[in-house]
């Protein structure tokens, strides 16, 4: 296991590359889904307003 994490001496480079990729794509995915949820709520609220008037 330790050998796997050592990556033949390239651990810093390999794991930084994979960590950065995971981080950037996760942030992009989470922020995109969150924004959609917020907007869907806003639209539902706006539709309710419309209905009440």
């Amino acid at each position, binding site marked *: 296991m330790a050998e796997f994490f050592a990556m033949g001496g*390239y651990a810093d480079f*390999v794991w930084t590359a994979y960590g950065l*990729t995971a981080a950037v*794509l996760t942030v992009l995915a989470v922020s*995109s889904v969150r924004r959609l949820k917020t907007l869907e709520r806003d*639209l539902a609220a706006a539709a309710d307003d419309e209905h009440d008037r």
Partner: protein
Amino acid sequence: MNWQALANPARFKRLSDRLLPWFAGGAALCLAVGLYLGLVASPPDYQQGDSVRIMYVHVPAAWMAMFVYANLAVAAAASLVWRHPLADVAGRAMAPIGAAFTFLCLATGSLWGKPMWGTWWVWDARLTSVLILFFVYIAYMALNSAFDDDTRGARSSAILALVGAINLPIIKFSVDWWNTLHQPASVSRLDGPSIHASMLTPLLLMAVGFTLLFFALALVRMRAGLIERRLAALSYTRSADAGVASFR
């Protein structure tokens, strides 16, 4: 296929509801298997050792940087030619995804370059043209949101996206046209890939995973964009109503 029909937000929502689980699930599956094969099952390179594993994120990210841009350019052309609102929404949705992949391509390339080339960065034709691609994405996003009038923002940024498409063949052939420190293509070659299957399989799986992830993210972001347009239209009618009411 009737593209006009897709501009109907309800119809687009139905289609994306149906496709989204397949894209997201397929991406998760491909990336899980690709990561296992890339990090564990594939052999270290006989020259580069385990640092070669950076390839499994670097190369797919580079392909995505260009693939997403090609999609952006098509959306830009559709936006200019047919004035189709869905094309504007698509362009705006895709640009940040493309910028993210381009950033990852540059960053992971740098992390691979340091141990293998002895430098984080060189101004060779491949690296420089990809850096320019990153700046074009940023400029597209900036220009798109620079106008109060969304239509003008969409139009100006679409023109920028089309002009910037010249960069795609330059990136692709930079390694053949100029003496670059960056190596030439190993996968898309006329005489077939020059990589062993044990490395080609995880590479392609990661690439398919990134592509499906891009489709999933683009759908989510396009849906958000369509709702945003709808909300803007609603508040416009409402303020127009209020304007009429104040005259009564």
